């Protein structure tokens, strides 16, 4: 496992410096903090702040931009950002209208963001948060708050950003963002591990022919370890889980994301979409939009996830607004 890095203890510093200097057109840094701030951040509106552990790039730093998040707090590799970092990041973009935090639901993130909110509220800043728990393989529906946030983050951020742009009050932005979150589910599968940069270690072990359905982004176990199968069988199983979970039916309108976890190629992801599209067609879902991307990764982990966002007219309105970051641009929609 060869990693193109320098001193492992400089990873965060150099990674952020590289990203921000390459895209200095769009970004600046919160002085002294591992945080990326949009140069075109919202004025006089609710600020959207995202964050989480690093190592999942482009998430989260790649989703700071116009129509997206105003800033991202970048935790250390696979570790939630600390409360001070989160609070400073929020202060850098707060415009007096409050701050909405969007992040994945993990024990570490929940506790650190909670502490940051306490700090901010002590300073008189209004805050709210939406924890993304889209991974339906990570816990049963009854314990939805135990579910992890994975690629569904992207859609929640997109819609939250559009709601902020619309100039709504914090509680209304919160309502819409929660509605988005509650209409998103994801299921993933892993074919090979990623690695922890700086350690020469795979994030988990998996037999030569084994895959794991529902595996989490850090190698957390999913619902079943099984044998590798052709793409269409894998996709069928994943789609079936999502359909059941979401109760999808004829004429439901959806946005779909096929997300590569790292080393799985666009060629393979395109084939996944081919298979998925066939199944959605058979069920007469209306695919409003689709993306085949690597948004939410775990280093060079192999595998992919499928995310479905069920749209209604309100969500679609926010989904369709233009946005731009180096990794997520919408705007040429006709």
């Amino acid at each position: 496992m060869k990693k193109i890095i320098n001193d492992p203890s400089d990873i965060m510093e150099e990674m952020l410096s590289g990203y921000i200097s390459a895209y200095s057109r769009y970004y600046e840094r919160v002085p002294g903090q591992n945080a990326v701030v949009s140069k075109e951040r919202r004025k006089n509106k609710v600020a959207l702040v995202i964050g989480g552990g690093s190592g999942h790039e482009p998430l989260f730093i790649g989703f700071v931009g116009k129509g997206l998040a105003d800033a991202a707090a970048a935790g250390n590799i696979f570790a939630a950002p600390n409360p001070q970092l989160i609070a400073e990041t929020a202060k850098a973009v707060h415009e007096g209208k409050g701050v909405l935090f969007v992040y994945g639901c993990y024990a570490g993130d929940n506790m650190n963001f909670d502490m940051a909110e306490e700090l901010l509220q002590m300073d008189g800043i209004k805050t709210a948060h939406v924890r993304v728990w889209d991974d339906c393989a990570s816990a049963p529906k009854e314990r939805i708050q135990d579910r992890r946030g994975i690629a569904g983050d992207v859609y929640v951020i997109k819609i939250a950003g559009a709601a902020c742009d619309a100039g709504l009050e914090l509680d209304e932005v919160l309502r819409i963002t929660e509605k988005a979150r509650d209409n998103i589910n994801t299921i993933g599968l892993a074919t090979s591990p990623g690695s922890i940069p700086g350690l020469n270690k795979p994030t988990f072990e998996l037999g030569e022919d084994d895959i794991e359905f529902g595996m989490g982004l850090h190698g957390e176990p999913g619902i079943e370890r099984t044998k590798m199968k052709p793409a269409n069988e894998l996709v069928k199983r994943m789609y079936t889980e999502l359909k059941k979970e979401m109760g999808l039916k004829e004429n439901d309108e959806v946005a779909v994301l096929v997300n590569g976890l790292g080393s799985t190629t666009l060629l393979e992801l395109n084939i996944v979409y081919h298979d998925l599209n066939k199944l959605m067609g058979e069920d007469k879902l209306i695919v409003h939009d689709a993306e085949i991307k690597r948004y939410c990764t775990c280093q060079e982990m192999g595998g992919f996830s499928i995310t479905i966002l069920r749209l209604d007219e309100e969500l679609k309105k926010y989904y369709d607004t233009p946005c731009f970051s180096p990794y997520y641009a919408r705007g040429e929609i006709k």
Partner: protein
Amino acid sequence: MKSLTVEQTTDMIIKACDAIVENKPYLTEVDSKIGDGDHGIGMAGGMEKAKTMLTEKRPFPDINSVFKMTGMLMLNSMGGASGVIFGTMFLGGVKNIEPVIELDGHLMARIMRGSLDAIKERGKANLGDKTMVDALEPAVIALENGNKEDLVQLMKEAKDAAWQGVENTKNYIAKYGKAKTLGERAIGYQDAGATSVAIIFNAMYDYVESLAQS
């Protein structure tokens, strides 16, 4: 030996930092089994920063500052579940205690009880949930029940209780942290955070013990 000075307490915490840094690979391995493998990096990173600051900023006016400084640095550098939890382990106990310049068995027990309560408040984990609480709670009870007049013996009982707690975590299903989705599969593996607690208590005991020898 009955108590430590502020300077000795500083040395003791620095020893705890060293022990965590030395055990980084071990903690990584433990967390890799059922977690995401970053616990060693996180703890070592936080405690290295704490050590640097403790070394630079010493001497401190009171025991409280030593614990607080350590906790703040861990909380605001590590991130992750363990940043909050272990930050709170050092921060939470001294929060409501007026400045003291001597660390005896009574104070140690009081600080650690305060830490435990704050951690349980923050993280919601209870005994048996396969977290660091499973090592910290028995250690706190040992501190509370032990002979406060013999600090060496008291710390020995605390660290033994912590290690026993680590052993116990092998029998539990995880309710918090990244291992919670493992269910039965987590059985047989010890919890990483609990291991860190035991390492810290172990190092504190070693320091107190070697101080008593000399």
